[in-house]
């Protein structure tokens, strides 16, 4: 595996993605909406609505909002990966790409990085802003700074990257079966359902989203990601791409 070839593929895809407004809008819009929207909501509830929220409940509320960065990590790369692979299918540019002295693995890793890097950077940037703003609006009520904390560390350093990787690999598998970007995005959107379910289970107390459980979930997801990686390697082979992909 030559990282120089991987980076050429990734940087080219990143360059093309910059030109797609729908992608950049999602990439910037979602983290900003979560990072600014939820602190504003908490600020309103604490300081303007007149409702009295006890400190014990406030922590749970902030944790719930933090989990939205996991859902973001599942949603954002779907659009990028769909364009990255189905876009090539639509433009029929995969064949010339496969004809270059680049291995299937290098192309796959380059495309994975092109979807993964902006997602992780967007999630991290959004989460940083979220933590700063949330600390600002809740520090007086709580009497201490809620962030940084271990839950957020696990979310940002383990769960969100794994979720993003899961979404990219699922998108690659889906992309091999469809022939247009819209279908790929619609099908890939299903990827975020398990994480919404996890969020609901956390909210109703079935699976509390504390540090320990987040670590367990990350471990289990890492195994799923490994399995999906093997499957996507199997799918992304030039013989398959040129003869079996739709």
């Amino acid at each position, binding site marked *: 595996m030559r990282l120089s070839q991987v980076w050429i593929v990734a940087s080219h895809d990143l360059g093309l993605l910059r*030109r797609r407004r729908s992608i950049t809008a999602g990439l910037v819009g979602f983290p900003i909406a979560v990072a600014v929207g939820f602190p504003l909501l908490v600020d309103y509830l604490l300081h303007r609505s007149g409702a009295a929220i006890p400190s014990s409940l406030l922590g749970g509320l902030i944790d719930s909002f933090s989990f939205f960065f996991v859902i973001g990590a599942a949603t954002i790369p779907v659009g990028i990966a769909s364009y990255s692979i189905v876009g090539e299918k639509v433009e029929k540019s995969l064949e010339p790409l496969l004809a270059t002295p680049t291995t299937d693995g290098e192309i796959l890793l380059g495309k994975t990085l092109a979807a993964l890097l902006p997602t992780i950077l967007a999630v991290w940037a959004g989460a940083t802003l979220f933590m700063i703003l949330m600390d600002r609006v809740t520090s007086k009520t709580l009497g201490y700074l809620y962030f940084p904390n271990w839950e957020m560390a696990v979310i940002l350093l383990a769960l969100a990257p794994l979720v993003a990787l899961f979404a990219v690999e699922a998108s690659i598998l889906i992309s091999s079966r469809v022939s247009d970007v819209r279908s790929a995005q619609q099908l890939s959107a299903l990827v975020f359902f398990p994480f919404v379910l996890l969020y609901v289970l956390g909210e109703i107390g079935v699976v509390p989203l504390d540090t320990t459980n987040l670590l367990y979930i990350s471990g289990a997801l890492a195994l799923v990601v490994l399995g999906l990686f093997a499957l996507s390697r199997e799918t992304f082979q030039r013989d398959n791409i040129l003869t079996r992909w739709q």
Partner: protein
Amino acid sequence: MRPGKCVVRSRPPVGGPRPQALEVLFDPAVLRAGPQMIDAEGLTKTFGDLTAVDRVSLRVREGEVFGLLGPNGAGKTTTVRMLTSLISKSSGSATVAGCEVGNARDELRLRRQIGILPENVGLYEAASAYQNLEYFGRLQGLDAATLRGNIERLLRMMELWEKRDLPVGSYSKGMKQKVAIARALVHDPVLLFLDEPTANLDPEAAKTVRDFILELKRERRTIFLNTHHLDEAERICDRVGILRTRLLRVGSPEQLRAELWGNRTLVRFASVSEPLQAALRDRLAPRHLEWQGRTLLVEVRDAERENPEIAEAVLAAGGKLTELSALAPSLEDVYLKLIHEKEPGA
């Protein structure tokens, strides 16, 4: 050339100075003596129960333009994909530019030595022509200075240099095809595979692309051309192969014409009667005669020697001639004859 060793051959760069004494290099005897750039033996590809390419054996010499002709679905693209190591072969063997096809160790080296123009141009429409070429040049491992030089030379040759920064999506079909050919040439490959390079182009754009291929031919580039434009093959190719899952015949257009069709003389009459037909059958025997209304086609070996004899026979038989001319079958005639021929045992 030893099998398993990829060999990079020295050749002037695209658009560079042409070698001297070009007529010597294009002498068929010199071409025949040249080393093999493609050497395939029994190449076969099956998809489940379907055999797409069946035991194809062919050789292409360095500096030769070889055309693979065949109807849609004949296996031309599959053959190119196998030869370029894009898809695996089911059986058989091949060496391309000295690299063994299907040998994982040779695969990347093989792709550095060949350029491919696929059937669909497959350009990044949102990117400019320059960016498209730059991407593929970088993937081919060219250093920045060489890459810049190659891109500029190719785009200037294609008369696209002034439009290099416009998105390819805004180009006409002909311009896109030229960019795709430039992409195949950006790393200066020793062997070029062109899959239907003029398909879907208007006549003017097709001529531009054809002229460019002829320019590449003058540069002594080895070209493997897939086409179903027979006039294109006739004008460009040194040799052609006719494929219908199996390779039916290989040879120069002249060889195929002579071998399959022979020469014919066309005789057109003012009127035709049964006694005239019977008299000509006797006088022109043992030549093969074919009547098409008031027109007679006579198979001859040497038109120049035999045509006066035919004219005499016609007049002696009382026929009123309106036209007598030598007919040279086109490659199209050869192609159609082969393609519609029943397979042995069918």
